[in-house]
């Protein structure tokens, strides 16, 4: 019996042991422990040039590895290494953090620690581009608007990023009305769009409560189905990843991610990084989609205009909703690849 116990213990201890080599494609998993939580980073792709794209997932309540799906991820990983990271209290992060400490600033500090660990493991000359999608755009903005922290990265890529919730809610209402009327004029799902436009017009944009904000978010995902059925969106290929092969435990991810989302919700609803975008001194790529009702294109366009200097790019995907990496995968990946190659 003792022998079995010793074998179990030894296999546990040596489980994470592997040789670090940047010549072959990276496939590493490491955890970063910070303020009561250990958060996994899944690092895949070409590490030869020590160029990393640190991916901040959406949610809160998502996970990093769900972004490693499809053609765009394959194309990105051919060019450089992608760090798919599970943020605090989400994905496969675990530990006993204190609820009272949870806020966006603490999560931005987690990113700083992850970057320190990446440089420790892969070399101080590693170049890191920060990427945030959706909620990841807000979290990444919290990191990047800080003048000391932004020196740690070579660039900021915000895709459909929600860096200003009050602004986002107002623009979502406007977009429902504008696109709704366009769709009615095109004779697309007229009955549904008529109801949506009527509902949107009734919202007082000077006083959007968190309940209305939640409704806007739900409706935003619903209308993507309408647009898809009416041929406005590029076909997006659903994930073919099997439950059995994912390192993510979907039950754990659902339960812990939703709780973290709930705890952050009040802060997120009030947060706006728009006034601080002028602080960003590193190259920026702002990406958005014409039919993104979850995070309307106005946010990316506004951020692009506010960013000081010429080292900035704006890309609008014409046939996509909130996740252009699925529908316009090749164009999406190439936009990122070209930006990183230019500024690495």
């Amino acid at each position: 019996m003792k022998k079995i116990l010793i074998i179990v213990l030894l296999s546990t201890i040596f489980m994470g042991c592997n040789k670090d080599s940047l010549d072959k494609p990276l496939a590493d998993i490491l955890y970063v422990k910070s303020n009561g939580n250990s958060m996994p980073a899944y690092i895949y792709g070409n590490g030869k040039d020590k160029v990393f794209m640190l991916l901040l997932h959406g949610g809160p309540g998502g996970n990093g590895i769900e972004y490693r799906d499809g053609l765009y991820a394959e194309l990105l990983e051919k060019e450089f290494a992608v760090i798919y990271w599970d943020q605090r209290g989400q994905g496969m992060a675990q530990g006993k953090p204190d609820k009272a400490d949870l806020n966006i600033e603490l999560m931005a500090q987690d990113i700083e620690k992850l970057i320190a660990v990446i440089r420790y493991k892969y070399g101080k000359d590693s170049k890191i581009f920060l990427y945030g999608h959706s909620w990841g755009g807000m979290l990444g903005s919290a990191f990047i608007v800080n003048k000391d922290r932004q020196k740690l990265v070579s660039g900021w890529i915000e895709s459909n990023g929600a860096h200003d919730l009050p602004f986002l809610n107002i623009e979502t209402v406007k977009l429902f009305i504008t696109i709704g009327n366009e769709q009615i004029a095109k004779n697309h799902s007229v009955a549904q769009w008529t109801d949506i436009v009527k509902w949107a017009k009734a919202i007082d944009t000077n006083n959007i409560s968190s309940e209305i904000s939640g409704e806007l978010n739900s409706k935003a995902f619903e209308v993507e189905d309408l647009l898809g059925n009416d041929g406005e969106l590029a076909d997006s290929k659903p994930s073919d990843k099997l439950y059995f092969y994912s390192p993510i435990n979907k039950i754990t991810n659902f339960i812990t991610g939703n709780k973290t989302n709930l705890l952050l919700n009040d802060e997120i609803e009030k947060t706006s990084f728009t006034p601080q975008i002028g602080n960003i001194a590193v190259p920026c790529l702002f990406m958005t989609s014409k039919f993104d009702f979850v995070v309307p294109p106005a946010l990316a366009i506004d951020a692009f205009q506010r960013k000081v200097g010429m080292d900035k790019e704006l890309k609008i995907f014409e046939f996509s909703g909130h996740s252009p990496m699925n529908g316009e995968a090749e164009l999406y990946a190439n936009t990122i690849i070209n930006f990183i190659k230019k500024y690495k």
Partner: protein
Amino acid sequence: MLHYQFGTAKTVMNKIILLLILSLSAKVYGQHLHYKGSLLGNQLIYPGINIQAEKIVYSKEKIKEGKHNKIWKKQRNIIATIDLGAYCHPKMFTALINTYGIKYQKITKRSWFYETGVGFGFARTFLPETYTVKDDGSVKKVFLPGYAYFTPKVDFIWGRQFKKPFLIDQVFIKTSALYLLHYNYTNLPTFSVEIGMGININNLQSQKQK
């Protein structure tokens, strides 16, 4: 921070090893323990093993004589249990679980048995390569990274006793719901299904004596 981590891990591991040795060596002191070994699937798909030592603390038996002088026996037992198990979530973590429980067992006249149990214990997770960053910005690798969670549990077991006294005296299926308390910002329920067998060392000894 590193010292704290080392201390916590070492203390928990020492307790688990000590409890295991005590439970498995209890027979030395004349206790009649029954053991169960099983393969488990945490959340159905993450593989693991579990060993249970159990002792009847209360027993009620009804014996009836049927046709052809056949004897039918019904039994109700209250059983104390100690479990030690482990499961692995490949690449992500391994968990050691040590729980203590009490269960109610009903054995039918045809030797099928049903058990319902409750208990509590501790789960210790072991993470792979983990780093922490100190206030001065230096990076350190964490020794034996992972967390200990308090874990209440509920078990439901269905099985069949073998009438002849072999070393393996029963087979069973067990479903368990185990709560990891204070996991991230909430409490995490995990579910396991086990397939296993009962081992009665007394039967082996009596067979040898024969």
